[in-house]
Structure formats: structure tokens, C-alpha cells
């Protein structure tokens, strides 16, 4: 019975968020863009009219609208721009999901521990977080690439190394105040073990913060992934990723302008959507984070 109560309590809280959100006017434009992005990522093979890496020199450099089989034109090797953009969405979502997910997980776990167990563990975790925040991401990425070589896992690793610290810091701040509340004290007196207190009693109260930071970080992560790809530190050339596409168009910008223009536009629109959504979520869930 007790566990049922806990369960329904949690569901209530989860349901309360859309309720509040509905009253606060949903940001429809960002949500639509995000939905389009996610659909493109999820079913890219079904949506893309062509193979994104199939070279067809006969159809090279078609301008957008010039030939309706290639609605957004083709690149210098005759690869279909629309298909590449759609697969590029998949790359962006894939990398940011894994990188941000891992970063959030590591950061949350360490933040919970640091906040609950003050002392040497706290000092160790927070000093490491300071050090991680103290490095420019590009430097981290470059060191990683020097050690491990360019590749998708290494981009993800670079992002995780820089992103986890933000989560750890914010979550720790939350835990410091939550652990002083009566229900935590009661749980402790009732003899509940520390992992369970952290997981069942403290963690659910940090979910708001977690969602807000995550949504505010997505845009940054997508930008970061694009820059690293652009610099050739990530995915191999030719791979359908927006940063690589911008970079491929750079040399021929005077001749085939749409090559750089379109993927850059895609990055901007998507990052804008996530930033607006993040701002909205923060204002709705947790106005005190406004300074973030």
C-alpha cells in the first residue's frame, strides 16, 4: 500500500506539470521545430528521398528548386541536400542525446553525492567540477582527439567532460537545501538507507532543475558538436552532419552558396528552438533559476 501511495504521488506530480504548462501558454513554434527534428532523426531513412552519401556526378551542383527530384539541390558530388540535412538531424540528435544523457547522469549522481555527504567527497567532486569548467571545451576536445583520434565517440567524450560539471553543481545546490527538510530527516530516523533516501526522496525533488538545465544545454551541445565537426575533429568527411556540410561548402561558397547556407540555417533554427523552449521551461518550472 505504501509503495502504491508513493507511486501515485509521483504520477500526480508528473501530471501537474502539463497542467501548469497549459496555463502558461505552450511555445508552439519551438515545440513544432523540435518535433520535426525528432521525427527526422527517428525515421530518417523513410523521409529522405535519396541516399545521403550516394555520389552522382551527373547531378552535381543543382541549385535548390532547379530539379524537383532534388528539392533543395545537390552538393559538388551530386549528393541530395535534403537527404543529407535529414540525416544530419539524426547525427545531431544522436550525439546530443548520448552526450547530454551521459553528462546529466554522471553530473546528477555526483551532485547528489556531493550535496548529501559534505566533507572530503564533496570537496573532491566540486574541485574536479571547477577544473572541468575551467577548461575551454575546444581545448578538451583537441586533447582528446590528439590522444584517441577523431571520431564520434570522442566528440561525445569531450562534451561529457565539459557538461557533467554544470549538472553536478546545480544538483548539489538543490540537495544542500532539500536534505534539511523534515521528510528527509524522518526518512533517516526511520532507518532508510542512504542510497534509497537519495534515490526516492531527494532525487525526485531535483527533477525540475534537471529538466531546466538539460533543455538549456541542448542548444549549446548541438553548437559544440557542429563546431567540432566543422573543424574536422569529429566525424569523417562526407558524413551527413551539419557542421561537416557547412565546412564542405566553405571552399566553393561563391559557386554553390546553398551548400553552407542550408545546414547552417538548420543549426541556427534548431538551437533557437531549444533555447526558447529552455527559457520557457525555466520560467514555468523554476523562475528562481532565471539568472542561469
Amino acid at each position, binding site marked *: 500500500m505504501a509503495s502504491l501511495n508513493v507511486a501515485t504521488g509521483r504520477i500526480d506530480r508528473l501530471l501537474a506539470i502539463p497542467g501548469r504548462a497549459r496555463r502558461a501558454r505552450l511555445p508552439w513554434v519551438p515545440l513544432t521545430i523540435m518535433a520535426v527534428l525528432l521525427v527526422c532523426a527517428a525515421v530518417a531513412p523513410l523521409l529522405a528521398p535519396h541516399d545521403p552519401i550516394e555520389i552522382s556526378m551527373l547531378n552535381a551542383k543543382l541549385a535548390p528548386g532547379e530539379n524537383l527530384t532534388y528539392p533543395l539541390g545537390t552538393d559538388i558530388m551530386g549528393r541530395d541536400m535534403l537527404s543529407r540535412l535529414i540525416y544530419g538531424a539524426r547525427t545531431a540528435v544522436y550525439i546530443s542525446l548520448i552526450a547530454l544523457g551521459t553528462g546529466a547522469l554522471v553530473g546528477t549522481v555526483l551532485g547528489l553525492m556531493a550535496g548529501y555527504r559534505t566533507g572530503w567527497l564533496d570537496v573532491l567532486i566540486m*574541485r574536479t567540477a*571547477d*577544473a572541468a569548467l*575551467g*577548461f*575551454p*571545451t*575546444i*581545448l578538451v576536445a*583537441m*586533447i582528446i*582527439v*590528439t*590522444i584517441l583520434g577523431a571520431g564520434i565517440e570522442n566528440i561525445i567524450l569531450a562534451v561529457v567532460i565539459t557538461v557533467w560539471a554544470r549538472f553536478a553543481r546545480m544538483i548539489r545546490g538543490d540537495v544542500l537545501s532539500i536534505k534539511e527538510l523534515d521528510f528527509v530527516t524522518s526518512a533517516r530516523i526511520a532507518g532508510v538507507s542512504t542510497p534509497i533516501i537519495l534515490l526516492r526522496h531527494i532525487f525526485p525533488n531535483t527533477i525540475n532543475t534537471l529538466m531546466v538545465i538539460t533543455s538549456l544545454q541542448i*542548444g549549446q551541445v548541438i*553548437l559544440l558538436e*557542429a*563546431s567540432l565537426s*566543422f*573543424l*574536422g*575533429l569529429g566525424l569523417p568527411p562526407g558524413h551527413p552532419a551539419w*557542421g561537416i556540410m*557547412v*565546412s564542405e*561548402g*566553405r571552399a566553393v*561558397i*561563391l559557386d554553390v*552558396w546553398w551548400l*553552407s*547556407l542550408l*545546414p*547552417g540555417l538548420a*543549426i*541556427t533554427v534548431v*538551437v*533557437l528552438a531549444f*533555447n526558447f523552449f529552455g527559457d520557457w521551461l525555466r520560467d514555468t518550472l523554476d523562475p528562481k533559476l*532565471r*539568472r542561469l
Partner: protein
Amino acid sequence: MQRYIFVRIFQALITLLILSLAVFLSVHLTGDPAAYLLGPDEGEVEYEALKKQMGLDKPLAVQYGVFLSNVVRGDFGHSLMMRRPAREVLIQRLPATLELAGVAFLLIIIVGVPLGILSAIKRDTIIDNFGKLFAVAGIASPSFWIAIMLILLFGAILGWLPTFGRGGIDHFILPAFVLSWSGMAGVLRLTRSSMLEVLDSEYVKFARIKGLSERLVVYKHALKNGVIPVMTFSGLTLAGLLNGSVAIEVVFAWPGIGRLMLQGISQRDFPIVQATVLTAGLFYILTALVVDILYAYVNPRIRYD
């Protein structure tokens, strides 16, 4: 205060040590530095001799110590590709990056702060909306893309500005603007929100009630407190400019250390990588340190944190 400064300097040193260790290991984990230096027809004997000469037969900890003491004296080793000491190449390239970052930082302050104040005073007018749009676009678009688009527009189509290399003042316009845009955007937003907060405070209301002119209220009373958070943030922006300048230097063919760093990595020229990464990291960590100490100086609350 002294204690705070001491702790903060200690932290910066630790961060520097971690960086140096990461750089040291990055070279030693990726391969055999001696094998890179060896010519094609040199054999086992020369290899062993070279290893000994480079100290590679000693334990890793000893090697790290040697590496550290060399780095502190500015000796990063010989560039494998350029056949010159990495320090020479670094010193030759550093001014270009510092110049560009300096101009960009100046732009961030002289554009970002006034626009932010203006946005706050003229809240919800066309000016404010323009400021918001400018800020939002600067934060969301990738700088390397903006750079390419501006080259297309101002360099190729209109032909107004030079688009690559270092030269006269006109060479600075495009790269400095692109490099500073996201910083300007951040400073603008922060100045605006911080000014709005201060303008709403009791002491500003009191100054108004006293009958002081709006000019005096804004520039004499509100501004002083309003710019404190901006100060810290712009310091960090300065540090972050090094982060952003890699892509900008690549797009505009700017002969700075960002491009050098990337070149070093793609050619596996380790001394160059060591020199550039350590220098960039040192600048970043020092700037953050100075900013933090200045901040503690103007804002006493932080010292006891």
C-alpha cells in the same frame, strides 16, 4: 580576502597541473615520440640512442618532471613539421590571436554594455526588441557559419571588405565582429537584466522620489551596481574568446595560434600541440583567476563563500 586569493591561486595552479598532465599524457599515450623523429633509414641502434637522448627510457614520473621543468622555461621541443623550436613558431603566431581577441573584446564592451543599458531603459520598444533579436541570433548561430555567410555577402557579393589574412584595420572588421557576436549577445542580455533589476530597487526608487533627473538616476546610481555582474561575465568572455577563435581563424585564414593548434593536431606535430594548448590554457586559467579576484574585491559577499 587574503585567504580567498590564496585559495583561488592554489586552485588555478592545480588546474594548470591537470592541464599539463593531460597534455603530457596525450603525447605519451598516442605513440612513441622517438619513432616520429626517426628518419626512414635509421635502425634499432639509432632508435635506442634517440630514446636515451630524449629521456624516454626513464620512468614516466621522471619524464613528466623533466617535461614540466622544460615547459616552465618555455621549451616545448622542436616542431616536427617546421623544423624549428615550437616556442619560436608560437611567439610568431601569438600576436595575431591576441590582437584579434583584443579587438573582439573591445567590441563586446563598447557595443554590448551600451546596447544592454539602452534595452533596459527603453524596455519593450523597438530598440529593446532589436537588442533581443541581436542577442538571440548571436547566441544561436554557429560563428563559423556566420563567418562564411559574411564573407559571401561583404567579400564576394558587395566586395566591401577583405575576407582573409591579417592586414590593415579593414582586415579586422569581419573576424572581430564574428568572434565577438556571441559575447556581445551575452553581455547585452546580462546588462539588460541586471539594469532592470537595479532600476526596480528601493534605492533607485528613492533617488527618483528625491526628484533627481532620470539621467542622473540611471548613470550615477543604477549603473554602478548594474555593471558588477557584467564585469565578471565579460572577463569570462575574454577567456572564452580563445575557445571561439579557433574556428574563426580557420575561416578567415588568420595566422594565429588557433589555426596553428589545429594544424598541429592534424599533422600530429606534438611539440606544436603542446605549445599551443598549454598557452591557450594558461591564458584561460589566468584570466579566470584575475576576474575572480577582481570580483571578490568589488563584491565582498563572495569572499566568505
